[in-house]
């Protein structure tokens, strides 16, 4: 009979090689990440100045219009995408039982939409809002386009959070005479809130980092603070592109730092909020 122990030993060299490979791979990944962050910080931190952050563009290059523009875009896109996305997910999970033909069609549609390159969304936004609606370049058009772009992600992650809520909780609520609506709002949504909030914050991260969509929809007007939502404008990510391609490498590097810090803060916030919500709904022991 074959000795099982020696069979295991025969593979030991392979396991060892595999382990070395994985360790090296991890090292390379970490190194790349650190290199990017370090490079951006080293080049950019010293270039940040009060004038750049809050100055008047007519005096010297400033990213104040971009900061305001970015906040506007986040506001518009989240206000539109979150209610629609969360409501769609509730419908899919709680009312169609997460299966059936409609469900599969929507599943494929959202996955496909999530995989479309953002420039395609940009082109769509351009043709609809800039050209067909005749709005020209506008923060509103850009914000709506971004909302459409992040919608599939919000639907998918909310769906996953809802599905992850134990079926026993729903049954428990129904068995106490709670209606479907009460069960959804008092039991299911609070249990899924951590996941939903994380999804929203990650979506904000995508909005903040997006540039392709905005080139085609808000027009990259870097010098003026948008007078209204119908005005053209800029965002932090667009400013990096603008500065780098118009002979302001220092300003580009400094803007990159601001954007990087913003995204890191968002991710930390996502983690912290998720934890707080879990605690308040008693999910941790």
């Amino acid at each position, binding site marked *: 009979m074959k000795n099982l122990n020696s069979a295991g030993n025969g593979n030991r060299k392979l396991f060892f090689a595999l382990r070395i490979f994985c360790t090296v791979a991890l090292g390379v990944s970490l190194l790349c990440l650190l290199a990017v962050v370090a490079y951006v910080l080293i080049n950019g931190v010293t270039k940040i100045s009060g004038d750049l952050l809050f100055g008047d563009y007519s005096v010297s290059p400033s990213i104040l219009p971009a900061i305001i523009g970015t906040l506007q875009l986040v506001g518009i896109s989240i206000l539109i995408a979150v209610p629609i996305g969360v409501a769609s997910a509730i419908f899919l999970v709680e009312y169609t*039982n997460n299966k059936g033909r409609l469900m599969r069609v929507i599943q494929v549609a959202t996955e496909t939409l999530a995989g479309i390159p953002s420039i395609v969304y940009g082109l769509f936004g351009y043709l609809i809002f800039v050209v067909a609606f005749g709005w020209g370049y506008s923060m509103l058009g850009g914000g709506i386009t971004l909302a459409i772009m992040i919608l599939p992600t919000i639907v998918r992650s909310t769906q996953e959070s809802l599905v992850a809520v*134990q079926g*026993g*909780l729903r*049954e*428990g*609520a*129904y*068995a*106490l*005479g*709670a*209606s479907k609506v*009460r069960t959804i709002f*008092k*039991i299911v949504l*609070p*249990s899924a809130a951590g996941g939903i909030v994380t999804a929203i914050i990650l979506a904000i991260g995508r909005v903040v980092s997006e540039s392709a969509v905005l080139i085609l929809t808000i027009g990259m007007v870097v010098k003026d603070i948008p007078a209204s939502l119908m005005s053209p404008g800029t965002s932090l990510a667009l400013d990096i592109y603008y500065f780098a391609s118009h002979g302001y490498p220092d300003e580009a590097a400094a803007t990159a730092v601001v954007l990087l810090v913003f995204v890191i803060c968002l991710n930390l916030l996502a983690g912290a909020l998720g934890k707080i919500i879990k605690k308040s*709904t*008693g*999910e*941790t*022991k």
Partner: protein
Amino acid sequence: MNPFQGKMNISVKDCNLYYGDFHALKNINIEIPEKKVTAFIGPSGCGKSTFLKTLNRMNDLVEDCRIEGEYKIGDVDIYAKDTDINMLRKNVGMVFQKPNPFPMSIYDNIAFAPRTFGITKKSELDEIVELSLRRASIWDEVKDRLKKSALGMSGGQQQRLCIARSLAADPQILLMDEPTSALDPISTGKIEELMDELKKDLTIVIVTHNMQQAARIADKTAFFLLGELVEYDDTDVIFTSPKDEKTERYITGRFG
């Protein structure tokens, strides 16, 4: 208005239930008396849990589930078109196999059902919460941490919390679907004592895999096999002189 107030006996005639093409319950006829413990026993897949769930219409949540027959609680037809299902479930509470406390505080868990039915005054809720926890004999263990999460409790405590949560709806009937199968013997003992206490005020129907448990706690016992109700009688009759050979073979452990 609550049409179920004070109605604690269940009468089922010619119940047939289908999951799609599968005939899961066949011609079930049973009269469940008030203020007694009635146990459903039988091997896995015999339909006892399915039948239990039809008593508070939890089977409505299952797709492709079709049911025929006459179901009455007191004189109220629970499958009538105008039955208020939420009111039915308020009056026919249910405790599940796996404890399912909501991810919220102990207090909020118990207050869930009263709040569902419109009680919002704090003094009133406080009273219901204390009374329900006392009835489930868990008050002394949790009275100092009512605002703490229910998920921090042990499994046995969680199950008694779930019983208290059902009692807070002031049900007339309590359905229990293998309530102790996930619990240790000490917690099981506590829940069995509790059932003995509770049957003074309400009707209890329990599904159990554990025949000793049925023998210990049940006044009446029903033996299910392959979707049929084989025999239903006083518990001591079922366990000492069953009329049906199949019942005898099951309780003596020769099949199932």
